[in-house]
């Protein structure tokens, strides 16, 4: 469960931007403004790659939980892949540290177009509790374009799932305006 540190709200990210529920995933996209097109492009299938750019392992665990029988992301046509060459979506977790900047850029470059980026957790959004330390570089969206952010420290699997579905354009009715 989220510790409600509210550290997601720093770095220019605001919960008040049309989002009443403080733990809902937000569409921060400039790339995929048109939700309908994402739905058309990806259909009901999404291959996601998770990259850890310096997390405390909490977000990793929650992403891992997506595969368990309770959340079961494959029932929604989403699966986790191991290579960016196969990936449609990139799940970025953790506070970006200097060693991972190039890796993150290279991973993003290696993904085929069109591609989605979902930053998961407070650290990926703003650095979270690592903000201000020398191991933290910047938020993920300053390095690569981010389509959807999923707040929380850590976010629950349901939130991550929601972020994935939102990015894939499959939540258009409930999506924020």
């Amino acid at each position, binding site marked *: 469960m989220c510790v409600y540190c509210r550290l997601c709200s720093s770095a220019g990210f605001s919960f008040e931007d049309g989002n009443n529920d403080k733990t809902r995933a937000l569409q921060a996209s400039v790339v995929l403004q048109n939700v309908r097109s994402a739905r058309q492009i990806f259909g009901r299938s999404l291959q996601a790659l998770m990259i850890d750019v310096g997390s405390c392992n909490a977000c990793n665990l929650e992403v891992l939980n997506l595969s368990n029988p309770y959340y079961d992301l494959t029932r929604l046509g989403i699966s986790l892949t191991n290579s*960016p*060459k196969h990936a449609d979506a990139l799940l970025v977790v953790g506070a970006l540290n200097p060693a991972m900047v*190039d*890796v993150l850029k*290279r*991973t993003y*470059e*290696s993904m*085929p*177009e069109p591609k989605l980026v979902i930053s998961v957790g407070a650290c990926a959004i703003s650095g979270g509790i690592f903000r201000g330390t020398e191991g933290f570089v910047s938020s993920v969206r300053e390095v690569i374009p981010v389509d959807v952010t999923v707040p929380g420290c850590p976010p629950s699997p349901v939130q991550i799932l929601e972020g994935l579905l939102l990015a894939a354009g499959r939540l258009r009715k409930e999506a924020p305006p």
Partner: protein
Amino acid sequence: MTAVGVVAGLLFGTLVTFGAGFFLGLISKRAAYLLGVVGSALSTILSLTVLISGGTTSIDLWKVTSSSFAQLQVSQFNSYFLLISSLVWLGTCLYSVKYDDDYPKSLSSLLLLTILSMVFVLVSGDAITFLIGWESMTIASFFMILQGKGDREGVRNAAYLFLAFGEGSSVFIMLAFSGLFSAAGTFDFMGPDVARIISPLGSWIFVTALVGFGLKMGLAPFHMSEWLPIAHSSAPSNASALLSATLTLMGVYGIIDVVSQLGQYELWWGWLALTIGGVSALLGALFSSVSEHSKGLPAYSTIENNGMIVVAIGSYMVASYYNLTLLADFALVAALFHAFAHSIAKASLFLTNGWVSKLRGSFDLGSSNPLPPDERPSLGFTSIFTALSLAAVPPLAGFVSEWMILEALFQSFRFGDLTSQIVGTLVGAVVALAAGIIVVTMTKAYGFGILWPRKLATASGKHGTNGGLSIMGSLVYFAALIIATGVAAPGVFLLASDAVSQALGTNPFGTFVTGLLGVPSPFVILSGSPFGGFSPTFTAVAFVLVLLGVVLVAGGVRIRPLGLGPKVRRTEGWFAGSAQSSDGTGLYNSFGYSTPIRIMLRFLFRTKETVVQVGGVQRPIIRSPEEYVVDLEVLDVFKKFYDVLARWALWLSAYTSKKVMPGKLGLYLIYIMAAFVFVLIYILLAVG
């Protein structure tokens, strides 16, 4: 019938040209190879003439016993094999003109001497001439292997191993011939016109012949004789092509010849041939797929293909035993067809790999030196046909022949008893598995030999070593042959049926090659009545059309003005997020490609994993991948067996020389006297 004079003239022309080439090689290599080209062309014409017009021409040389002559004989049967060999020699000699510029002059002489001996083996009408040719072929090849570029110790070992296996083969062939001689009463049994021999010695003749010729073909327990001399000594590529494509063909020729002399088959001979062939095919395919040596890989693949040929021969024998004439004929033609398809494709693969190794400066398929970019397109184009043919992809030569062998095995259900049916089916499954594994091998040979690695930032290949007319001419010639053999398969089928028509009593061409379902007459090959059938020619046409369709419609080609074709975005390769190294280390290579097989089948390969620490880091726990490399070593278990055998033999001879030989002179003289008396008594008894 052609005039005897024409055939004799062509034969002597061939022999004299190769002989002259042998002597000329001591002066000029180029001239010798060019003479080799001329000689091969002559023998091609000779063999085609005899195959098409029929008839047997014998030329007596001298009297051996009261009833037999040493003679040269050209029949349809041996001219089929002469045709295959000549086609290979033609390309090899052409290739050698350019390739062989950093080997001693003796190589050209030895190459032509080997070719000359092979001609003798093929056109010999009697056992004596055959053995003379066989021996000189072995010895000339031995010296050719000694020219290899590996380390001296390895080269010597490999050459002597080749010699040992070659002489072993001669011994067993002599044993087989002694059986044939006692049954036929004459040495003139190499020709097809000799009446079939039905003898209580049949089993003896068959088994010794299978071992003798199997030693040369590299069949399963003796497959060392095939891969080791070529791979360990890194023998010159033209010599390798000769050894692997045509020397083993002599074994195929011999075994089919002996089998066709025997009038009646025992059932277990067929089982033996099927089993040995199946095991060879599977072992050859597996070892080929994990080989990292650009010569070792094709050499192992030769073992696989020769195994398939022996399987077809075994199928022929079992079918003959049950009087299944149709199936027997088809299996025998399949064996001959496969010999044709394999020889030309294998020669081409060796020659390609030889040139590629020279350009890349390494015999290692996993080498990180890329091909020079200006050589890549032409080599890639010619060798794709070679690799696809060996991987049995339609419509090329290898597909037609492998299809025929598998179709023959599919019809194992026709065999008369349950055991034969089970053996036939199991061997069929094994051969199909081998044919599948060889696809992995050929993708590896082509992918890592030619395509990978692509140009690297710091790579500096040897530029300007363009193959020119000699190399490229030869490779294009082979590619054309491979395509032609596939597309015009009924033509080769006709030649193969002509070759065996005397042995079988009928010409199987009319039975198996017809028209069907609107496809005109000589374009469909049937495999039984009624069983399977397909038309290589029309498959080829359909294949090309489909391929064109895929390329044009699905958009392999970009047509810019119309906006057709795929969007292409180039990115770096994926190295788990790290940057691509500029020197090629850390690239995915051929070793990585086949390591899963090494690990999965470690019980077979005896894969040994050793961790080598780098840079003198000595720690109980290895922490980072920079500190160590893991070396996987694959062992041929049979080599181990022969090593142990060799050690025992050495120990025994050392023991004898130390303990027995330095005895008293008197005892030694008594021993000699006793031996002499024994021989005298034996002769008296035998004559009396």
